[in-house]
């Protein structure tokens, strides 16, 4: 039996309780076109900061992969950079040794990231909570150490350089101003958002949300929570691998830090800042984190992390759903005013 407090007015008044589909979806609808529009506007408004904007776009795709794992699957991880780094190295190695077409590099990164996620996910995803967190960190450390030791392929601690991607579609060269790089990264990010949205609205996405909320209830309707989690981890691994490959394409270099623990942790901070479980929250969080970093690091290079910390505390205390939830609330207020008018 449940307590009395948990069951107010049973059965009463189903009609007034009926609310239109959650407000967050309305913003989800305009979220992706908005990312594309703001991204293009930034291209014209901030022509001197294209390198930063490119990094933001590629990182946002990485944080998006973390949102799939954490926001939709409820998998606590501090090792997402393992897939990012694997994807980046795979793309770099493919470009240096065999084929330097940018799309082939992205494909290599996606396959490598998805593959490593599938292999490690099947091993570690029976664990939950703190144990799982430790295991994900361990996987990240192993990947980093393998990259460090395989000097012949990865360049070890010197990094893998000499990546020179061919023109996009044979037409658009990667120019020294970074215009092609940025537009390419933005296009890949928007495509990634569209694919992620599609997946999360599929039967698979629905099942993953169910697993996040109550894995045992999924068993009770005949599903296997672990197989959903492993599949989701692999899908997110593909996204992370593509993000790593995108960084290799646009920066021309892959370093050991791309698979490092700090990069996993930073991605988590960006995701929490932006808001989990929304996809575009990942983009907002990444842009906010890296934008603030860029501005503060220029004006106060010694204390910028402190400001980020204060900002994060403020968000977690006053907007637990991240910046995106604040925007949604704002959107909800505006809509209510319109309704009244």
């Amino acid at each position, binding site marked *: 039996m*449940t307590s009395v407090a948990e069951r107010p007015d049973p059965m009463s008044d189903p009609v007034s309780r009926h*609310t239109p589909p959650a407000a967050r979806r309305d913003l989800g609808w305009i979220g992706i076109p908005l990312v594309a529009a703001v991204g293009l506007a930034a291209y014209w408004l901030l022509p001197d900061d294209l390198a930063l904007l490119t990094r933001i776009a590629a990182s946002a795709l990485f944080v998006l992969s973390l949102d799939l794992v954490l926001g939709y699957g409820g998998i606590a991880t501090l090792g997402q950079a393992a897939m990012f780094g694997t994807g980046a190295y795979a793309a770099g190695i493919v470009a240096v040794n065999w084929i330097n077409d940018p799309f082939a590099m992205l494909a290599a990164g996606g396959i490598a990231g998805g593959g490593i996620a599938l292999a490690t996910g099947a091993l570690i995803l029976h664990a939950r909570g703190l144990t799982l967190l430790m295991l994900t960190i361990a996987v990240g450390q192993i990947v980093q150490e393998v990259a460090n030791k395989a000097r012949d392929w990865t360049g070890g601690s010197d990094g893998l350089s000499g990546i020179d991607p061919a023109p996009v579609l044979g037409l658009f060269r990667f120019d020294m101003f970074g215009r092609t790089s940025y537009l390419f990264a933005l296009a890949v990010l928007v495509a990634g958002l569209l694919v992620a949205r599609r997946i999360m609205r599929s*039967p698979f996405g*629905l099942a993953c949300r169910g697993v996040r*909320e109550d894995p045992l209830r*999924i068993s009770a309707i*005949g599903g296997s929570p672990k197989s959903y989690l492993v599949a989701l981890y692999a899908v997110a691994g593909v996204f992370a691998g593509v993000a790593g490959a995108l960084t290799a394409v646009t920066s021309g270099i892959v370093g050991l830090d791309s698979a490092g623990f700090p990069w996993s942790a930073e991605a988590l901070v960006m995701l929490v800042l932006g808001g989990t479980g929304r996809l575009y929250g990942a983009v907002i969080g990444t842009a906010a984190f890296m934008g603030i970093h860029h501005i503060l690091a220029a004006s106060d290079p010694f204390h910028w992390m402190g400001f980020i910390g204060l900002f994060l505390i403020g968000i977690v205390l006053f907007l637990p759903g991240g910046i995106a939830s604040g925007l949604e609330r704002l959107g909800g207020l505006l809509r209510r005013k319109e309704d009244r008018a």
Partner: protein
Amino acid sequence: MTKLLEVEGLAKNFGGLQVSADISMTLNAGDRCALIGPNGAGKTTFVNLVTGVIPPSAGTIRLAGRDITRLPAAERVRLGLIRSFQVARLFKSMTVREHLELAVLQRDRRTFRLFASVGKVAGLADEVAGLLDTMGLTQAAHTAVGSLAYGQQRLLEIALALAMKPKVLILDEPAAGVPHSESQRILDAIDRLPEDLAVLMIEHDMDLVFRFARTIVVLAQGRLLCSGTAKEIVADPRVREVYLGSRADAR
């Protein structure tokens, strides 16, 4: 009549403590059976044994002729042995509709489609609409379960079980937490379940039991005390002693 669920000599010991001993019963297609017994009689243990939540120490369980004694819980669900939970156990942020969509997709093993849209899966919308209608939940379809009235959550529990196309449905106190005045709506919903289904209801409320059950099985101290029609059970002096009588005395 087809025997859907056959339980033979089912027993469970936790160390030296015997919580269930030598329970045998059969459910046929179309049965409406209530499992009753005083607190601590082992009703929940029995449900957990049959559904595969805990393994039995002895005995066999057959579903539609197939031995399922050693099958894991999820596999039994796929074979059509479905339960509802005593405390509504639902996905709080998902809407009523999404619950039923998930259950139907899971039943048909279509949940690993990554690029299909839930809204466009053939036949899904119609089936979900039918389930909503059967349970009287159509108006609440788009409400998140977290903000749903408790009685409606109970209806959704039954709808979820029904969405799995069960052969045998075990309802664990389906009206628990719902005020007596409202329990009729739960019963009405149960009345609309397909006729050929075998339904086993675990229930405390004798009023509900007599309104629902054609046959009654009584458990006491982990053992099967007796079984029979509602009339026989009421007349049985042993039942009066362990269950009805002691309750009447308490009043």
